[in-house]
């Protein structure tokens, strides 16, 4: 038996740890740090799930699990950075621009996903490893809000079968290596 979990379970846990329902005072720093980490993993696992599902489609479930394990945090970060660079007017590899845009524009939901991923990943790293990381209740709940918003953006892109989202997921399988022979 496989014990499954959903992004909503992580988001609910992160909300609880950060004191959204407790509604009073300032939770202990350790709780806030775990909430930040949990919010990031809600988004990471949702991305991996969609990447594997869209690649395998109606194929065997064990193929989805195999592909899901190919995704790495750093490669998602790299592709997210390309999206952000294109959106902010900075340079990005020509192939990435070609694959991630339509007529030079980046889809708004893809921007929400990219910028949320980058900030949550950096916050997760701080929360897990940096003794000086400054965990506040409003910022931590804000990170859960960011993760929830990015997951909604993923589901809209999935529902409307956005081609650039497929390219994002494809590029995220190999990051920079994917473009070397382009």
């Amino acid at each position: 038996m496989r014990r499954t979990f959903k992004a909503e379970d992580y988001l609910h846990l992160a909300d609880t740890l950060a004191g959204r329902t407790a509604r009073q005072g300032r939770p202990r720093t350790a709780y806030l740090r775990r909430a930040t980490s949990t919010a990031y993993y809600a988004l990471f696992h949702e991305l991996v799930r969609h990447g594997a599902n869209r690649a395998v489609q109606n194929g065997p479930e064990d193929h989805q699990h195999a592909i899901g394990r190919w995704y790495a945090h750093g490669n998602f970060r790299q592709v997210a950075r390309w999206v952000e660079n294109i959106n902010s007017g900075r340079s990005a590899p020509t192939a990435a621009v070609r694959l991630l845009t339509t007529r030079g524009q980046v889809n708004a939901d893809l921007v929400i996903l990219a910028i949320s991923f980058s900030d949550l990943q950096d916050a997760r790293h701080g929360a897990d490893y940096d003794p000086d990381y400054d965990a506040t209740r409003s910022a931590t709940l804000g990170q859960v809000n960011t993760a929830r918003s990015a997951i909604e953006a993923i589901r809209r892109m999935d529902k409307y079968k956005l081609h650039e989202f497929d390219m994002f997921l494809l590029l995220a399988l190999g990051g920079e290596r994917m473009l070397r022979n382009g």
Partner: protein
Amino acid sequence: MSTKRQDEALPELAAAIRDIDVPGDLAISNVIVEPYRDSADEAALRAIVVMDGTDADGWSAELTHTLRTQANRLAAEHGLDDYVYVSVFSEQEYAERENETLETDDSTEEIDRLLSEESQGDQ
């Protein structure tokens, strides 16, 4: 970008971020932009944005998305290639950063109770 040029550009970027039209009822009261090393140890910038109030439900995604996208567009316009991470604080939270240790209160007991109830419900 040279160090001198960045020294000039960071206060200009902070002033530009302060003028961002943010969604919601709160306004930006102060912005500081400083060099930062991110989780991949890459050179980046961090914009500390201080708001004139707080939100009991946490900073909204609309607020933080607006700040993050606009801060990076403004940085590119100012010739800054480094990615800008944005950290949002209320004025009180920002003032508390100077304290060595902060008192926590008993709100964690309420969280523990909620977690305990839920784990019992799963059994």
